[in-house]
């Protein structure tokens, strides 16, 4: 009896498209054709919505430029001073030259992450293609900056002067390997967190669909819906923290480039 209910619900579930990984597919917005580089897809739609939201907050809300800020302007000022404080804490005053780049990273990741929490939306940062490019850009920029600013003294970040002389070559090899793993971990951290959270929510939604069909009056829905609410609250926290962590690690790598040497 239970198996028939499960099978029926799984078939209904297939029509409802609750396969946990189906939400990460890139689909064209109009029609079902192949995806070229110029096809509007759900990725482009949600990136557009994120950029419109950023412009609304940062440009339109601060348009009045009141000395006593309005509500939108004070939120924009809080975000601005938060990122500025983070950069000054970690890289010092010289890092403020790179404030536009780091602010852009923080805002785009924060807004796309939070918009991905809306139902039926798409989380742009859940694809390694997107976060990989962001992390590679950070890595390339920081390495080139380190070499332009410091010349070959930039290589001092691999030569740890506090360690005993015999250990330094081995430590240097380990440091070089961990330096090149930086873009990998930087990108996979963000993409994995986004994909994992949304996949867990979708898995619980699948349980909810099965239990709604299987139990009388859908009374079994209480458990999975409660679980979805709990995971959703955790996701809200994780989303903001992941944007913060991406930005603060960018600041740490920038500090390595600007002030090399341990």
């Amino acid at each position, binding site marked *: 009896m239970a198996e028939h209910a499960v099978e029926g619900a799984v078939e209904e579930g297939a029509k409802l498209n609750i396969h946990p990984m189906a939400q990460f597919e890139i689909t064209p917005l109009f029609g079902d054709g192949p995806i070229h580089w110029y096809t509007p897809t759900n990725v482009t739609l949600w990136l557009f919505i994120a950029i419109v939201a950023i412009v609304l907050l940062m440009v339109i809300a601060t348009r009045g430029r009141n000395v006593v800020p309005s509500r939108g302007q004070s939120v924009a000022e809080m975000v601005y001073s938060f990122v500025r404080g983070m950069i000054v804490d970690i890289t010092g005053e010289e890092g403020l030259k790179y404030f536009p780049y780091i602010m852009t990273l923080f805002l785009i990741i924060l807004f796309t992450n939070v918009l991905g929490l809306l139902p039926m939306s798409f989380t742009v940062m859940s694809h390694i293609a997107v976060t990989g490019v962001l992390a590679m850009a950070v890595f390339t920029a920081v390495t080139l900056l380190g070499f332009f600013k410091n010349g070959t003294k930039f290589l001092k970040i691999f030569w740890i002067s506090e360690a005993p002389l015999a250990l330094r070559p081995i430590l240097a090899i380990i440091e070089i390997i961990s330096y090149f793993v930086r873009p990998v971990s930087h990108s996979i*951290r963000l993409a994995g967190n986004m994909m994992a959270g949304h996949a867990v929510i979708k898995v619980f939604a699948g349980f909810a669909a099965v239990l709604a069909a299987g139990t009388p009056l859908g009374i079994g829905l209480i458990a999975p819906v409660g679980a979805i609410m709990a995971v959703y609250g955790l996701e809200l926290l994780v989303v903001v923290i992941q944007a913060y962590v991406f930005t603060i690690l960018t600041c740490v790598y920038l500090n390595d480039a600007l002030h090399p040497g341990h």
Partner: protein
Amino acid sequence: MEEAMVTGDLVKMGALIGAGLACTGMGGAAIGVGHVVGNYLSGALRNPAAAGGQTATMFIGIAFAEALGIFSFLVALLLMYAQ
């Protein structure tokens, strides 16, 4: 007595078993994150005035420790759904 028949291919079974095994990596990540936060808490309760400045360091430590658990979860997801 009926014979039990196992249906489905061996590759899928191997992938699902591997996905289950990959999830044990998340236990280490949970211990790591708890270690970082626990040390921060014990330090913050001894010296509350200095605790505020180190919340940033705590979050960086949490991110590094959690990232490896996320890697293992990613492997599990890939084995389950992209196989």
